[in-house]
């Protein structure tokens, strides 16, 4: 294969970006597979991690199984799912690709306009493989108006999924440059326990099934299990579960509402 001058220039730039500036490979290539979705990425929006891909697929399998076994009425025919801190939109799009056709409506929100623009591009890019509706909105979940905004979009959410920033301030200083120098600090650095205020977004739904997770939150390891679990308990999710990832690290806390 012969490279033309333009390709050579691109390659030289790519190598220098990678070697001298620690640019993540995914930003250079420009996309990353996520389940059956292909997610375009550009700096500084968080690059989808395999851990996230793993639990999203596990979650969709779990929902599919329950939709098969549950009696009608126990699960909503059309689940309203909120993806908070959606970033590139990978979780929302991944869910919409994997879940049975027309069984869900996923809304992704993020504080960053860059992220929302990218997520919408990705929505466009994956239209052919999407089986459920997806939309993206810019919302600052820290603002007092957030709750109001979300209620405006949907009167009731059945499930909240999120990969919120969970790197602590001390850890942030120690991050490799390909993460720290390139990815949005707002996607990484946890802002106190406040982010857990997310759980208040949930409103009591009519779901009878207790074996159905209502909150699905990615975490950064074992140390974060207890605080997240506690916050869930405090908000009425009295049953919790922890999923490990393939590398055997505690990765997701799920909250169930048991009456």
């Amino acid at each position, binding site marked *: 294969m012969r490279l033309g001058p333009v390709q050579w220039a691109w390659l030289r730039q790519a190598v220098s970006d990678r070697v001298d500036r620690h640019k*993540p*490979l*995914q930003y250079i290539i420009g996309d*990353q*597979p*996520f*389940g059956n979705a292909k997610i375009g990425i550009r700096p500084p929006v*968080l*690059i989808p*991690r*395999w*851990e*996230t*891909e*793993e639990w999203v*697929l596990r979650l969709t399998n779990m929902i599919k199984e329950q939709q098969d076994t549950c009696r009608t009425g126990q699960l909503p025919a059309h689940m309203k799912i909120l993806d908070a801190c959606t970033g590139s939109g990978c979780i929302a799009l991944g869910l919409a690709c994997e879940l049975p056709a027309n069984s869900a409506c996923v809304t992704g929100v993020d504080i960053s306009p860059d992220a929302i623009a990218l997520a919408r591009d990705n929505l466009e890019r994956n239209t052919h493989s999407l089986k459920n509706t997806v939309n993206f909105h810019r919302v600052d979940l820290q603002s007092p108006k957030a709750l109001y905004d979300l209620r405006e979009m949907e009167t009731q959410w059945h499930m909240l999924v999120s*990969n919120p*920033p*969970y*790197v602590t301030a001390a*850890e942030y200083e120690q*991050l*490799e440059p*390909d*993460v720290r120098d390139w*990815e949005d600090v707002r*996607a*990484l650095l946890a802002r106190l326990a406040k982010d857990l205020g997310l759980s208040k977004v949930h409103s009591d739904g009519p779901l009878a099934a207790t074996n159905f997770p209502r909150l699905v939150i*990615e*975490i*950064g*390891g074992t140390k974060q299990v207890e605080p997240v679990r506690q916050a869930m308990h405090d908000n009425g999710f009295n049953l919790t579960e922890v999923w490990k*990832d*393939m*590398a055997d*690290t505690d*990765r997701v806390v799920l909250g169930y509402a048991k009456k």
Partner: protein
Amino acid sequence: MSGDVSGLDREELARLSKEFSDTGHVVEPYTRLLNLYAELVELQQMINSEDESLRRMAQEERKTALESIAACEHEIVGALLPKDSAESAGAILEIRSGTGGDEASLFCGDLLNMYERYAQLRGWKWNIMSMTKDGERIKEAVIKVSGRGVFGVLMFESGVHRVQRVPATETQGRTHTSTATVAVLPQATNVHIEIKDSDLRIDVFRASGKGGQHVNTTDSAVRITHMPTGIVVENQQERSQLQNREKALQILRARMYERERQKLDSERRASRNKLIGSGDRSEKCRTYNYAQSRVTDHRINFSLYDIENVMNGTTLQNLIDQLRIQHDLDELAHM
């Protein structure tokens, strides 16, 4: 099925209908064969006739009739044999370079091209599961070949393939002998093999540390160990770890399926002395001799002096046909 069926109950009727339809693929060529024989008798009479031009015409037709009869008989033999259920499945084709260093891996690449081209000609789907290569040199390749009856055709390819030629890497014009091993496994369907999650150890490379948002992993390699059997499968073909895991699981499933199948096979055929090996890698099955433009299959002692067209996939079919005939005859002899 003529006659009175009113006395049969529904189940009996269903069973008989199935039996009836199962015999269809034998009956149909058999009827054709009878017709051909009748035709042959008529032609024979014409050949005995006085008319010169009629006689010549009849002789021509007799030739084609005999060819059709031969084809028909092969078909019947094939139809009479019990079907190995795996034969109708797709296949996992594994090619590895054997002894002979660089030349062996070049030959490995040649074999890969041959099979790919052949698969194209047959209209099969060719899907590379994993490949270790350096330019034209292929160390190892695993390919999923999908289509109808793929395994039944490719199953004879298992074994050690030997090449004799002056390698491109040779400067003094000496002929080298190198080998590549080919293993063809039936592509398992999920039904036959059950793999318990608890029996698997899945290693993702460089998974130490915190993971998640803390690091940006670009290494997506996955290694799966099936602990009860000790089978280890690795895959790093895809950019997504999840996709690599799926592919690795597929390969693992195929290997376990083959293991089970071979176990059954050897139990069932323990007493048989089969001419065609069961893909046992210790035996050399075919030689590709470039100087003589010859491809010899040692199992059936059959040579084709047309190496170029074998290597580009166009006449590989001839070899496979011969192997199939021998295999079928062998099976029949042991029925």
